[in-house]
């Protein structure tokens, strides 16, 4: 049951990632992004991280994907406005050749560093309550810094995204 779910989710995840990697059509890579975010949320659920699951669906899908889609469809690129990518094929092969060993090393390192099975959990791992108590007992400072970061990002986004004023409102 869980294995089937895992296989399904990893299929969606990889299909989404590969779509983002290869697709030219904006609609395709947007959908790929949606699939990736939802699949990651599902994997969080498989890891018993129920609050992370909810946060990923709510923030990842509800905010990030929706925002991305709105921006992409506002810009609404025509077929001829898409960048020509003549060097995409060679770069993909070359990049894969370079990145694959690093990925393999990273994977071996991660596997070597951890036991090969999941330990049995205490009651209430990953629930909202447990998350909240850990968050507000041990991790208050990072949390507050994150809120500052979000504020800064918001201000930055507003300032960057503002139209340059070519005319004076008063005159």
């Amino acid at each position, binding site marked *: 049951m869980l294995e089937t779910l895992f296989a399904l989710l990893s299929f969606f995840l990889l299909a989404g990632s590969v779509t983002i990697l290869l697709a030219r*059509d904006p*609609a*395709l890579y*947007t*959908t790929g992004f*949606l699939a990736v975010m*939802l699949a990651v949320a599902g994997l969080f659920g498989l890891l018993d991280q*129920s609050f992370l699951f*909810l946060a990923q*669906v*709510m923030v990842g*899908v*509800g*905010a990030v*994907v*929706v*925002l991305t*889609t*709105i921006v992409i*469809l*506002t810009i*609404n690129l025509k077929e001829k406005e898409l960048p020509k990518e003549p060097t995409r094929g060679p770069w993909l092969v070359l990049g894969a050749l370079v990145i694959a060993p690093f990925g393999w090393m990273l994977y071996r390192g991660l596997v070597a560093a951890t036991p090969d099975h999941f330990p049995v959990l205490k009651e209430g791992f990953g629930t*909202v309550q447990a998350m909240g108590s850990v968050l507000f007992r041990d991790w208050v400072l990072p949390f507050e810094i994150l809120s500052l970061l979000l504020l800064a990002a918001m201000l930055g986004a507003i300032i960057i995204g503002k139209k340059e004023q070519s005319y004076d409102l008063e005159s």
Partner: protein
Amino acid sequence: MSTPAILVTLAVIVLAALLALLMIPVLVWLERRVCGLIQDRLGPNRTNVFGFRLGGVVQSFADVLKLVFKEEYYPGHISRGRWLFIIAPMITFASALLAFMVIPFADDVVVYGEKLRIQALPIDYGILWYLAIGSVGIMGMILGGWLSHNKYSLLGALRGASQLVSYELALGLGVVSMILTYGTIDFNAMVHWQSDMVLGFLPAWGALVQPLAAVIVIVALFVETNRAPFSVAEGESEIVAGYFTEYSAMKFAMYFMGEYIAMNTASAVIITMFFGGYQLPWISTETLREHFGAIAWVLIVVLPVAVALFIRWMKRNNTVRPTVATDGGRNFETKILSRVLIAMTVVIELILLILSFLPADSVGTSFAVTLLQIAVFVAKLMVFNIFFIVVRWTLPRFRYDQVQTLGWRYLLPLSLLNIFVTAIIVVGVAS
């Protein structure tokens, strides 16, 4: 899990699916009939099966049949990415259906020592699940509007998306103040909290404890469901049909049904958070279980009276005007229906009679309490669905900038203020 527990779980899942899916034709029928009666018209009342028209419900089933068997039509300019075009309404439909699955229809029952939740997905994320899944539903709308390659669809999708995104803030903050009040995100625990009393005589319903949050959340939920007076995403007068202009047949029906399920879910969330959920006012589950005998006797007395009143109403109103030559079998239908109703009443009376002599802690009593609570839930659900419909046919549509102004400049500050006041009161009471 024991066999009875599995049976109960299956029954609950089937009930949830029925409440979500079977409600769609009923809601469509209600929408058309209530709209007609409000505007001094009759609405659809002619379609019948063997002379049974049931006030016109048969019309919606005929409509469903028509939509299922209609020709699949694709506009010529949608050649690439057609599978995405088909998936988009499915996203909306599936997320609307999933969001309904966490609503508790009754209090937990204990079956052979196992505590079972009477909700289709036995998880306790409650309102967070609703918010999370509701935000996925936007994606179906945006994708559908965008992939139609049509200016009207694109405008509708943009409007709908920006409207939903901006009201999600007000909705989330309004919900936060309710979470502060209840101290939980679980719907069932929220309903338990509401079975208390405030000021000694009023039921502690969310709408009475937190009226401001109630108004904010109800308004935001109207926006979430994309219904009038906030239906700018599909404003017929300006942008044809908004994001589903290019959709036809079953794909259109998916959007349509998703919308009605969303409305149903929104009513369920409203009654669960603000109007005591499945609880009867003043009567908590424990009281119901302890004094079920007395309550069964009250039901035994009340039920025949209600049925008699209904039959009288039906005899007078399931007719046509005397000037019309034929009544199309309406008298026959009334006769059969009243007999069926009377027979059902008799059976229910007998069951209630048996139940009233059972001891208070027996399995039968707890199941009867569950059924009663489900009935109360469905009744409240219908009342709020009708409220949604009446509001739609009462208020004119807001202009788009008015919608945004209301969301950002009134509801958002108000919900923030509400959170501050609630937090101060909650902390003050706790310390």
